[in-house]
């Protein structure tokens, strides 16, 4: 106990004038005294670094098909955010995975240094042990095996040089069915490229192309296809699967085929299409198809199949294969549909990921080799087969038979726990590399920061070991390629680029510098597919039966389990159920009703191979005989955020047959217990109540009738299955806030009125925006206990509204964040002026002024404010990831979305330096400012200055679909939503005459400044598209200016110590 001296006492009372600065210090908790902080200057400062400013590095985060080039935002020695690299193909959006990869980089349970068993050793010892083992292995004539996830480019070459044919690339929820089918149909094991943006009708048999499936730009291409402001039409999506996942929920049409019959349906559709288009080669391959039998087996009607086939043909369709449980046969049938459609190469070609994809059977063979003592050294990369494969495959036992099992994963996993030697490899932000995500396209990876822990580059580990073991490259050196002689991994990468990619030394330095700056080189190649197949032995479709048919899908953010230790992935609500932190069994509402079970009731799921107990989540969008369990949870050997959450799905399945997680027949019975899956009290299903969301106009839906009435019925537009352009504004939504009588004058926004539009039609519910918000704004993660009662801190949430329309359950994903109201409910009520309306039209929140009455939250009709119930802290080294520009909040303080005001101010500041003090920042520079907009892959979010008539956001807000939720409250929100339009084959469409629509059509086009590209060129085909992209390119240039501003002159940052524990 210390005694208070007089000054302290006065300070404690807060009565002297000079105490006031600290009396506001609730936020940093140093109430009365602060420790003296040190300022440690550089001894010799690197030229390109100025403390307190940002440096951007173009690099690549993920390998494999989803490889994505990003710019890493570096400041004061650490990377705090990653954005899309504007030089890479695709629209400028980032998605959730790279951000999760960023958090993975700082995971508190990463392995911090080399270990032998559990004991820490030095790198020299570790590498010597590896080299020694390799040498022994070679001498003993045993194999060196490398097991890793999908890898391309330089690392693929290096692993092949070391392990030869025993460099296995496999992922549990990978693309092996697609790859094997490709081999079967096209004669090459290469993934196709799906040009969704060129399609008018997208038919998926369960491939979750909006949930991380396919290449990294898939969602962006979908966004383009669905964006009436970009293309000349809006693509229609059909979904043939027994359940709808996040991707399926976005589909316009759902054909609930019985489990096990999808391949039959696909084949029947292929044959119908082939008949229509006269594709005899395809018809031959399909053999004799009984469409009626396929339809009846699947529970669909022949008319359904014919309608699909007709839409495919007339709508420039494209077919996508099955998802996690899609068989090789299904994938082959979908390829044949595309071949039968005679789709142009830009819509469907073989230029997708060409890195090798091994099937589970092949992995099984290698495991057998290991089990039989044929492997001397087994190096396991960042995959976790022990966790991911069914218990029946005895992966752990077989792996243990290796002479030396080496894990190079720096994340703790069940497989790593078995390893005799752990040599943690650096993460992608700390490493060099070249990946090849698509045929002809290369991304460079370069270190964006020094390693957080004592880790080394995987390339260096392997090179040193290979040299130490005196290995000869297992790949014949017929063509020029880097060798083990490379000085280090960075040199190897450089050599790879010069020799393998570019094929020569001419202009090498300039090329290298260009690649370092841009991160991207090469151009995607289009490989037109050629049928090269022996006759295929088709099986006749039979529906699975005998209980609930259990399907597994990738968890929406955790994926195949790799991001299970990332709290952002765990705490972001599931798009469909709103659940988080765990597993739940999704069943249909009818099934639950029949069993007398309700949400959160515990059930026991019993399959021939295992039993688990978990809560249920009855929801629309599932056949009554289907249950869905997400993959990726239920870890035991993982990090602290992975262990003990949810159940492990793979235990319920038998062997993975021919590359697909064949659905298991499960017996599901209620245990009578109640579970929690931390849904945070989120309501999912809003059907059949008196007061639905439609009444409340949060998620507004444009019905098929309205579309038809607008002269936009699909029937009126040949080649176009949807017609959103000509939609008149719903009269209920027409009354804009401005038309209301106001007691007070509207607020004065002299220069800027920042605003946003949210296109509900484009939003896929992927939650990338939520994750980006967590990353940018230092949102604390509160954990399952508190999240289960709704205390999570997300500023941005995605509401989901199920609604029955036209015989379908349609879901609307509505991102909801602070609406930055002009006449805000929250501002009036704050007694201490901690929240107010600022001159830029933002609803400001001053954390250090907040006393925590929480009145603002109650007065917010959108319920978007979040309260700090505790002073949350970040386990090290998560604290390094904190954004120093944003204050971290302490207990008792309200917080909310600010449209990333720190970025807004940085942009303004940079513009001031560039253009002078009074210059107004133009729209192009604003567009990507908030983190959520930057992250949104489908471009549902548009940000800008609504005082600027020409700004995109202003134009979009005038769209025929625009609405403001709760606009009758006259809060003058700054966010306009654009209504969702679901395009069903409307049975009533035929009743509408075609007479009136032409005029409306033209008028809409003439007036449609909002439909920017349309206004210029009317209806165009692919050429118009290119033009449109040219426009996009134009704004990309402007982005460049913006990016430059980011890169060179940043200001208005917080002091470096702003992030708690930043140092």
């Amino acid at each position: 106990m210390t005694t208070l001296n007089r000054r302290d006492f006065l300070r404690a009372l807060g009565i002297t004038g000079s105490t006031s600065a600290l009396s506001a210090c609730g936020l940093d908790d140093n109430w009365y005294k602060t420790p003296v902080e040190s300022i440690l200057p550089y001894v010799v400062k690197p030229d390109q670094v100025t403390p307190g400013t940002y440096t951007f590095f173009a690099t690549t985060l993920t390998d494999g098909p989803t490889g994505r080039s990003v710019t890493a935002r570096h400041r004061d020695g650490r990377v705090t955010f990653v954005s899309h690299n504007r030089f890479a193909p695709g629209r400028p959006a980032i998605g959730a995975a790279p951000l999760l990869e960023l958090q993975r980089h700082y995971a508190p349970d990463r392995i911090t240094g080399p270990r032998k068993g559990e004991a820490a050793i030095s790198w020299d010892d570790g590498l010597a042990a590896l080299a020694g083992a390799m040498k022994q292995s070679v001498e003993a004539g045993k194999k060196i095996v490398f097991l890793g996830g999908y890898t391309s480019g330089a690392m693929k070459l290096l692993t092949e040089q070391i392990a030869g044919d025993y460099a296995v690339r496999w992922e549990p929820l990978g693309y092996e069915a697609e790859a094997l089918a490709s081999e079967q149909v096209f004669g090459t094991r290469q993934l196709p490229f799906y040009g969704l943006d060129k399609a008018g009708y997208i038919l998926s048999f369960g491939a979750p192309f909006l949930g991380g499936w396919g290449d990294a730009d898939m969602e962006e291409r979908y966004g383009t296809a669905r964006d009436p402001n970009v293309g000349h039409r809006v693509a229609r999506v059909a979904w043939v699967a027994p359940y709808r996942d996040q991707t399926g929920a976005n589909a316009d049409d759902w054909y609930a085929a019985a489990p096990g019959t999808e391949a039959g349906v696909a084949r029947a559709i292929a044959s119908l299409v082939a008949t229509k288009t006269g594709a005899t080669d395809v018809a031959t391959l399909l053999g004799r198809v009984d469409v009626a039998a396929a339809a009846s087996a699947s529970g669909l009607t022949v008319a359904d199949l014919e309608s699909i086939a007709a839409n495919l043909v007339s709508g420039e369709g494209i077919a996508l294969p099955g998802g996690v449980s899609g068989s090789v046969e299904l994938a082959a049938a979908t390829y044949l549909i595309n071949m039968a459609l005679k789709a142009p190469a830009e819509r469907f070609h073989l230029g997708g990921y060409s890195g090798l994809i091994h099937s589970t059977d092949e992995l099984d063979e290698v495991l057998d080799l290991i089990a039989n003592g044929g492997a001397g050294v087994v190096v396991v990369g960042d995959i976790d087969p022990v966790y991911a494969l069914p218990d029946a495959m005895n992966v752990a036992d077989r792996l243990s038979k290796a002479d030396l099992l080496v894990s190079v994963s720096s994340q703790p996993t069940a497989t790593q726990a078995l390893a005799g030697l752990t040599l943690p490899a650096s993460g992608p932000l700390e490493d060099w590399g070249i990946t090849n995500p698509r045929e002809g396209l290369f991304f460079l990876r370069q270190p964006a920061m020094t390693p957080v822990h004592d880790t080394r580059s995987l390339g260096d580990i392997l090179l040193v070991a290979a040299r130490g073991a005196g290995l000869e490259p297992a790949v014949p050196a017929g063509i020029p390629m880097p060798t083990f002689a490379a000085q280090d991994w960075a040199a190897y990468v450089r050599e790879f680029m010069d020799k393998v990619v570019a094929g020569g030394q001419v202009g090498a330095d300039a090329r290298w510098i260009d690649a370092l700056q841009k991160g991207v080189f090469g151009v995607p190649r289009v490989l037109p597919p050629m049928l090269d197949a022996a006759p295929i032995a088709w099986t006749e479709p039979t529906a699975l039966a005998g209980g609930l048919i259990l399907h597994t899908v990738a968890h929406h953010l955790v994926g195949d389990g790799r991001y299970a230790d990332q709290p952002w992935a765990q705490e972001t609500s599931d798009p469909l159920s709103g659940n988080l932190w765990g597993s739940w069994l999704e069943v249909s509402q009818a099934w639950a009703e029949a069993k007398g079970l309700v949400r959160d009731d515990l059930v026991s799921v019993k399959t021939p191979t295992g039993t688990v107990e978990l809560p249920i989540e009855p929801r629309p969008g599932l056949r009554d005989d289907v249950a869905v369990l997400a993959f990726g949870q239920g870890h035991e050997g993982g990090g602290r955020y992975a262990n003990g959450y949810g159940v492990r799905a793979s235990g319920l399945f038998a062997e993975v047959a021919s590359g697909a997680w064949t659905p298991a027949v499960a017996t599901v019975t209620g245990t009578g217990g109640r579970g929690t899956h931390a849904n945070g009290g989120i309501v999912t299903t809003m059907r059949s109540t008196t007061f639905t969301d439609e009444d409340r106009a949060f998620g507004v839906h444009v019905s098929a009738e309205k579309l038809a009435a607008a002269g936009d019925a699909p029937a009126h537009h040949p080649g176009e299955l949807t017609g959103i352009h000509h939609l008149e504004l719903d009269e209920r939504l027409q009354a804009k806030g401005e038309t209301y009588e106001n007691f007070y004058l509207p607020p004065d926004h002299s220069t800027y009125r920042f605003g946003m539009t949210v296109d509900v039609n484009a939003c896929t519910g992927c939650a990338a925006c939520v994750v980006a918000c967590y990353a940018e704004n230092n949102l604390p993660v509160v954990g399952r206990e508190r999240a289960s009662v709704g205390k999570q801190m997300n500023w941005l949430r995605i509401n989901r509204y199920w609604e029955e329309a036209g015989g379908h359950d349609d879901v609307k994903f509505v991102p909801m964040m602070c609406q930055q109201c002009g006449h805000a409910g929250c501002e009036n009520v704050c007694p201490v002026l901690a929240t107010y309306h600022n001159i830029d039209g933002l609803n400001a929140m001053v954390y250090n002024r907040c006393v925590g009455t929480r009145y603002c939250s109650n007065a917010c009709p959108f319920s978007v404010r979040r309260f700090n119930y505790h002073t949350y802290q970040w386990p090290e080294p998560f604290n390094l990831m904190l954004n120093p520009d944003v204050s971290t909040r302490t207990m008792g303080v309200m917080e909310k979305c600010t449209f990333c005001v720190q970025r807004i101010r940085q942009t303004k500041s940079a513009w001031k330096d560039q253009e002078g003090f009074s210059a107004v920042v133009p729209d192009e520079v604003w567009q990507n400012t908030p983190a959520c907009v930057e992250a949104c892959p489908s471009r549902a979010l548009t940000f800008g200055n609504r005082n600027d008539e020409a700004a995109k956001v202003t134009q979009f807000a005038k769209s025929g679909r625009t609405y403001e939720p709760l606009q009758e409250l006259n809060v003058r929100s700054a966010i306009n939503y654009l209504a969702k339009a679901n395009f069903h084959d409307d049975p009533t469409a035929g009743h509408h005459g075609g007479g009136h629509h032409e005029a409306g059509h033209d008028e809409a086009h003439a007036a449609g400044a909002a439909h920017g590209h349309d206004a210029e060129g009317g209806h165009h085909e692919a050429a118009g598209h290119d033009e449109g992209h040219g426009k996009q390119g134009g704004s990309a240039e402007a982005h460049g200016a913006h990016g430059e501003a980011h890169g060179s002159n940043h200001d208005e940052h917080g002091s470096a110590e702003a992030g708690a524990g930043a140092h």
Partner: protein
Amino acid sequence: MQGTENPNRPATFGEANRDIIRVLLKPSMGWAALFAISTAAMIYGGWCWYLQLVYGLGVGGYNPPVMWGIYIVTFVFWVGIGHAGTLISAILFLVRSKWRTGVYRASEAMTVFAVMTALLFPVLHLGRAWQVYWFFPYPNQRYLWMNFKSPLMWDVFAISTYFTVSAVFFFVGLVPDIAVVRDHSTGLVKKIYGVLALGWHGTMRQWHHYMAAYGFFAALAAPLVLSVHSVVSWDFAMAITAGWHSTIFPPYFVAGAIFSGCAMVITLMLPLSYAYNWEKYLNLWHFEQLAKMCLLTSGILTYAYGTEYFVGWYSQNPYEWGIFYWRATGEYAWAFWLMVFCNCVAPLPWYIRSMRTNPAVLFIISIFVNIGMWFERFNIVVSSLAHQFDPAVWTSYWPSEIEWGVMIGSFGWFGFWFLLFLQVLPAVAIAEIKELIQPPTKAALGAVEAK
């Protein structure tokens, strides 16, 4: 109607003095037991609040969008309780109602202590209670002031004004009575009361200005009573939350406050009258009048409930009607129907005279009313928030043990002060009782002697 006069009055001034004063500073065992319970509850509440301060508000049951819970419910409850006292002492004074005399002192004390209790909650419920001084206008180097447009700031002004005015009013009324106590005591006690009595000796100069000032206090307090609960109701009505945003709230809240306050007076005074043997001062005649008051305000409340529903239905506003429909049928329907029963149905027996003159019935119904009024606030605060505009965030709230503890603590705090008051200050206004006694006159004496 039993007449406008108390049927059972003391005979002389002296008798009134002694009857009232005899109970002071003589704690009975029953009193001690109640006092111990109150103190324990108060300490427990303090402990719970300490935990909340240290760990943060997360120890409560809040989850967005329900960010106000039983702290605010109890706050409004206590402010409501605080209304009866000033109503009885000020408004009934202005209209020269005679039955106020017996009950007004104790109910005024109840008011002051209830407002003291209510004043705790705006501090207790803060996320950063240590910054509460930002609520007050004081010059500071930051040039920062408060938002006078905030209903919460109106609340700060209204309730602190109400507390100040009622406390002054209470004390002013007490001065002549403390003088009586002083005169009847000795030693140190006399000195203490002597200081408190401010040297009151009943000279005409004192009485003259005193009565003028008292009248003005009453005149000022009367609109204040009506305004304070109006302002409290604006805490809700000024926020655009459905179920809160309603122009009917001020009269509705004021009626409810009077209703709950009068019921609380019955609850507190009825046992008091028996325990202190104060039949002459507080008897069924008084309680009957209070019961009538309750009946009137219960009727107003019932009408207000009906109006809310009618307007909700008639407007066909999905948010309004949604919340009212859900309130009566949803998760908190039990609380709603409990409220309806306690506030609209339970007082109905009081229409029968024998019911409102039966001590047991009076007491039981008054308890019902107290419970009902607490739940009315619970319904308003919690159920409106739990089903806010956006159906995607609909949630439910149940208080945590910490919140219950703090609420129990508030009852303990009230009990502590009220019980202390009963022991140290005259709980019936002696001077005003004397005004109701026929003053001794020679003429009357002569008449008696003449007989």
